[in-house]
């Protein structure tokens, strides 16, 4: 006989009585099936994820393949332009892990920052630009890994359009014919933070800093986990599979503490157009909705994010707020830079932290990094460049 709860001791319905079983069929179609169908019909070529790969779980429980190496690094305008340690750290991690990767010159921006800012483009141009980059990756023999959250989201949006609108495929086919390039689309659109997540145990194995006293807040990028959600990475062991696992998974693996706060899901306030020409909006949003909330509720040592716009907005918005005596002052960097620091990367030569706005010194001290010595080392190199001794800092020097 099934007992009624009246017969039992009263137990409030706590979490211990709940376990999310992701056993429902996904509510979305499988884009890979559609891609392979189009390939079979001769409409395009699908670039396969090279082996070996890691299998990660996504939002609705499907498995996504993340390659270890042979990666084609689709760089980000804002990262390379204004946060150069971001891209450098991603490359440095690949080098330290001993992976073959390619940093192409035959790559353009996805141009989506401009598209979301000004709409001075159209879906045909946007799809043409995406496919040109993907085709180039295929020609180079490497698999694309996307550095920017917006590029990642926009390419997924573009994939949806290409899969559903034959007219768009015809337009792209014509463009590619004119460029004398094949029409290629990758099997998976992989964001670098997914790669970092997939590699987090290896990164932790090579960790040289003790981060157990470091508290981190995480800001997930809207274009990562809201714009086309189905293949963002989730992990049933993190947040019970209810929020994206990237960044948080890395922080846990590195032994630092993840602090939760009430505006976790909020945007950073980048706004695309706003960050360039209406910055009062971006600044107010970033400080009042994100930074001040984190400060008040967690008081973290650093906030980590995984997108160009988010690092920029969260970091650069704090200077003016500080001038107004607001409760701000949280260093901001990417998961890749944090991982690199944990593995012993140079804070200025590799992570290029001097390009960031908020003072990083208290954080670096807490992490056990001698920032004075490190800055002196950086300056020596800068002086050698000024004196014409060397043209630039080489990878050999950075790897050392």
């Amino acid at each position, binding site marked *: 006989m099934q007992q009624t709860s009246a017969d039992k001791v009263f137990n409030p319905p*706590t979490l211990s009585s709940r376990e999310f079983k992701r056993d429902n069929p996904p509510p979305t179609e499988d884009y890979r099936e559609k891609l392979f169908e189009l390939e079979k019909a001769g409409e395009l070529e699908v670039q396969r994820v090279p082996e070996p790969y890691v299998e990660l779980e996504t939002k609705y429980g499907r498995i996504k393949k993340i390659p270890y190496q042979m990666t084609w690094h689709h760089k980000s305008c804002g990262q390379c332009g204004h946060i150069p340690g971001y891209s450098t750290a991603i490359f440095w991690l690949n080098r330290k892990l001993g992976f073959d990767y390619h940093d192409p010159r035959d790559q353009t921006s996805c141009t989506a920052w401009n598209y979301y800012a000004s709409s001075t483009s159209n879906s045909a141009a946007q799809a043409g630009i995406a496919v040109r980059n993907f085709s180039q990756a295929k020609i180079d023999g490497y698999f694309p890994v996307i550095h920017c959250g917006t590029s990642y989201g926009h390419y997924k949006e573009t994939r949806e359009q290409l899969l559903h609108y034959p007219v768009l495929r015809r337009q792209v086919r014509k463009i590619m014919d004119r460029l004398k390039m094949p029409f290629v689309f990758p099997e998976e659109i992989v964001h670098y933070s997914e790669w970092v997540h997939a590699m987090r145990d290896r990164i932790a194995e090579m960790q040289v800093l003790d981060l157990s006293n470091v508290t981190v807040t995480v800001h997930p990028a809207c274009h990562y986990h809201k714009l086309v959600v189905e293949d963002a990475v989730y992990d049933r062991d993190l947040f019970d599979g209810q929020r994206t696992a990237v960044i948080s998974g890395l922080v846990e693996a590195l032994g630092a503490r993840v602090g939760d*706060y009430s505006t976790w899901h909020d945007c950073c306030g980048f706004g695309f157009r706003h960050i360039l020409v209406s910055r009062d909006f971006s600044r107010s949003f970033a400080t009042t909705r994100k930074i001040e909330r984190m400060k008040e509720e967690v008081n973290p040592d650093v906030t980590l994010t995984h997108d160009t716009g988010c690092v920029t907005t969260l970091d650069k918005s704090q200077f003016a707020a500080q001038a107004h005596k607001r409760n701000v002052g949280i260093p901001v960097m990417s998961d890749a830079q944090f991982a690199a620091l944990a593995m012993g990367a140079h804070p200025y030569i590799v992570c290029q932290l001097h390009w960031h706005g908020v003072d990083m010194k208290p954080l670096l001290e807490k992490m056990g990094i001698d920032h004075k010595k490190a800055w002196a080392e950086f300056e020596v190199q800068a002086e050698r460049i000024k004196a014409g001794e060397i043209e630039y800092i080489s990878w050999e020097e950075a790897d050392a």
Partner: protein
Amino acid sequence: MPENPVLVIGGGPAGLEAARGVADLGYHVKLVEKAERLGGMPILADYAALTPNMVNAEEAMGEMVQRIENDELIDIRTSTEVIRASGSAPALEIGLNGPGGEEDIQTGGVIVATGFQHFDPGKETQMYGYYEFDDVITLVDTERMLKAGKFVRPSTGEAPKQVCFIQCVGSRDRQIGNPWCSKVCCGIATKEAIEIRQLIPDCRVFIFYIDMRMYGFWEDEIYWKAQEKYKVNFIRGIVTEITKRGDQVVVKGEDTTMGRPVEVPMDVVILSIGMEPSEGTKKMGELFQLPSTHGFIESIGGALNTVVTSVPGIFVAGAAAGPADLEDSVSMGGAAAMKAAAFLRKANLRVA
């Protein structure tokens, strides 16, 4: 030759009423229930009081069970499932699997009353954190507590001071593939809101809703009563996400009537989870090859014929056919009994 019995699958409100009806009309019934106990969801999920009349679920369902238990025309099989079906009514070959092992029987007709299951809030595309936060619970969790005569914050075991309901969780949602309204959640949430206010008079209770669907007498019997007598706050607008701040959860949404953002800490948040076709309903649909709508079994006549399916001799009743309240379910059980008996009678006349 006595005619084959009518097989009633499912011992919830619809199935119980169907079994009684068939027997009252003088035909044999085999009532098969997967669980160990009759009574269906109100009993299995520990409902406290039934909507809208607030009668005790245990007592009300107990009466329904009692009415059929000693009827010699009704053979009750609990812990039993239907695993095979072949042939056609009125001579359907059915395979059962129960405590005594497998058994093959012949039935004259079938009433599928396999009901619904509660929506799993982990599938919700809003960020409600049911699997992350102790103090985010469901209507069902609330019923269990109310049945025990208590209502507490799960995280502390103490009485809450501020509670809210979020409506339409898992219903009316194209993203997750559940575009239907589950019909009963507005009423149940309002009923529970009244019960919480009765139990803890100094607790503020909010209901975040899109439309309050309080049909017929539910309007003044529960909705107006909740607003006027129990001062439940009805806020038009659904919560976008639930996050944690300190030891409380914060709900964030828009009050669309006022056009103002809402951001308020709560001691307990109750998700008004909707109905989905149960595993049994999906299985029986496949077994008897019944067309379905959103996974629920379709009747052929729409509003004018709610229980007849496209397969002769197979009838459907209750939430197996789509979201249904108790009135719907029991009425459909009666209608299905009448149709099944009529089917057998006509079949026997043909044989004679």
